[in-house]
């Protein structure tokens, strides 16, 4: 925690070393987070890349209320939401429908899915309602607390916990049905 605050402080003082350290420390987490939310590693890479460029261009705008990890995760989630909205608009207008299909087929070699089980899980996650998927991914992969997720989603902690619980139930249900098939 203190290291992150110092890193941000150094970054604001113009330290590119601090920027590199932040990038190396959180790039993997953020990519994983974006990829899980989007089920599309290529789009996730673009989002993380664009985010870090933007982050680097205006460090003075960074205002940490909580942890840097949560802050970065929140930024990525917002970008993912924007990307999803764009994608939905494109789907509505019939543009790039093939490209926007929720799938990991774009660059499957990048997913370290060493078992059929994980592949199924990824597919199941993609089938969850966006808000439930977001809560599960942010909590389990982003390490965010329910309180922080509640603030991000603009709902109560109870709602977030319910989404988490329903999301996991739904996942279990989807995966069960796949197994039965």
């Amino acid at each position, binding site marked *: 925690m*203190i290291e992150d*605050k*110092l890193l941000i*402080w*150094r970054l604001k*003082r*113009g*330290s*590119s*070393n*601090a*920027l*590199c350290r932040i*990038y*190396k420390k959180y*790039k*993997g987490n953020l*990519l*994983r987070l974006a*990829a*899980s939310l989007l089920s599309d*590693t290529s789009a*996730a*890479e673009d989002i993380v*890349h664009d985010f*870090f*460029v933007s*982050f*680097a*261009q*205006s*460090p*003075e705008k960074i205002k940490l209320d909580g942890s840097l990890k949560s802050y970065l995760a929140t930024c990525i989630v917002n970008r993912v939401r924007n990307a999803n909205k764009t994608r939905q608009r494109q789907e509505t207008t019939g543009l790039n429908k093939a490209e926007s299909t929720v799938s990991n087929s774009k660059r499957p*070699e*990048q*997913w*370290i*899915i060493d078992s059929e*089980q*994980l592949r199924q*899980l*990824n597919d199941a*996650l993609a089938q969850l309602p966006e808000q439930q998927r977001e809560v*599960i*991914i942010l909590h*389990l*992969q982003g390490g965010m607390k329910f309180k922080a997720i509640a603030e991000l989603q603009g709902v109560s902690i109870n709602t977030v916990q319910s989404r988490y619980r329903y999301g*996991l139930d739904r*996942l*279990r249900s989807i*995966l*069960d049905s796949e*197994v039965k098939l």
Partner: protein
Amino acid sequence: MRPEDSIEKLIKNINIDTNAKIDDKVLGEVVEAFEKSKVKKTSATEQNIGRVIMKSPITKLAAAVVIIIACLTGLFLWKNTGSGIALADVLTKIEQVTGYRYQLSSTITRQQTSRDWTSTVFISRDNSMKMVAKMVDPNNGEIKHEDTYFLPQQNSIIFVMHEPKAYIRLKFDDNEMENYREKYNDPRIIIKHILSCDHTSLGQSVIDGITVEGFQTRDLAYNGGFVGHADLRGQADKVDVKIWVDINTFLPVRSEEDIVTKKGTRLYEVSSDFKWNVVLDAADFEPDIPDDYTLEVDLTVPPLNEETAIKGLRIFADLAGDYPDNFDRSTINKETKRLIRLEKDSLKHLTNDERSRRRDQLVEDKKETAYYGETVGPDDTNKVLLRWKLDNGQYRVIFGDLSIKNVTPEELAELEKP
């Protein structure tokens, strides 16, 4: 179906293998974007302890720590002043004037880069001081204006920085305030320091039509105030300080200080155009701070004592992860920058020669002070972090875990065994 916790575990374990080459490329683009957008650094990081511009709680904390440590260092290195005759009379005469003002022209050169500033200094009988400074940033040639108010009645020092429209307020206890006053290089301080050194008469001459008598010291022990230039303290390679006094009024007409440290930093400062017995009232020292200026720092500097010094070390260790590498003034100055820049990698800067030289300096001061911040960390409960000799022959020891104990020389020898 797998239990719920297995699903959670699986999600946590989802990973993505990234291409290192692409990673490097992306990072390169990110850094490039950063460098392009980087706002020109101000010269804040080059400023002195007292003028550290602090914009976050962490910086405030860092400044507090640094001030504590710097003050403690001052204790170890402080030298007593002696007394003289003619110059002592000048000092007495200055104390009798109601108020005075003068022009100060300063140039400090570090590593072939010079920084110039000119100031008008106002000093009242109660030792309130206002310094209105104009300085040129050597990095970009920009002119900056800064006013400093030294207010002993309020035990505070206020720095008003006009270009960023900001101000800083530091509060001290009585002792620290007096210490700070000693650092402002007004003629009284210069004379006191000359008196404490070997000095000679330059004989009589004429300056601006006034017959003056000059005094000079080239004593390397000269330890002027030099507020804002902590790195000028300690060992000097060259000292040439002169002051000329009106033979009729016994008041200074001009002074020149030319100090070069062993590290090559040079300060050249001229005080001139003195106006004595100027009428100055309290309103002249009322800080002039426009409403739209931001209070960047409002810091109460803790009184200097063992407890606060230890607290300072503890905070320092919490912040920086270890103790300062060394404990003399020069290093403290570097440590300040270290906290300000937090460039840990660049901290491995001290050569062995520098380290041993600094230890030698402490030994020369005969306080038998030793500091082992290089090798002792917060977990070293039985290792000596800092020690100095007490008047009773024992040693005061602060251990790595910041516990304190008085020990005999024999016990100390045992503790310091490799």
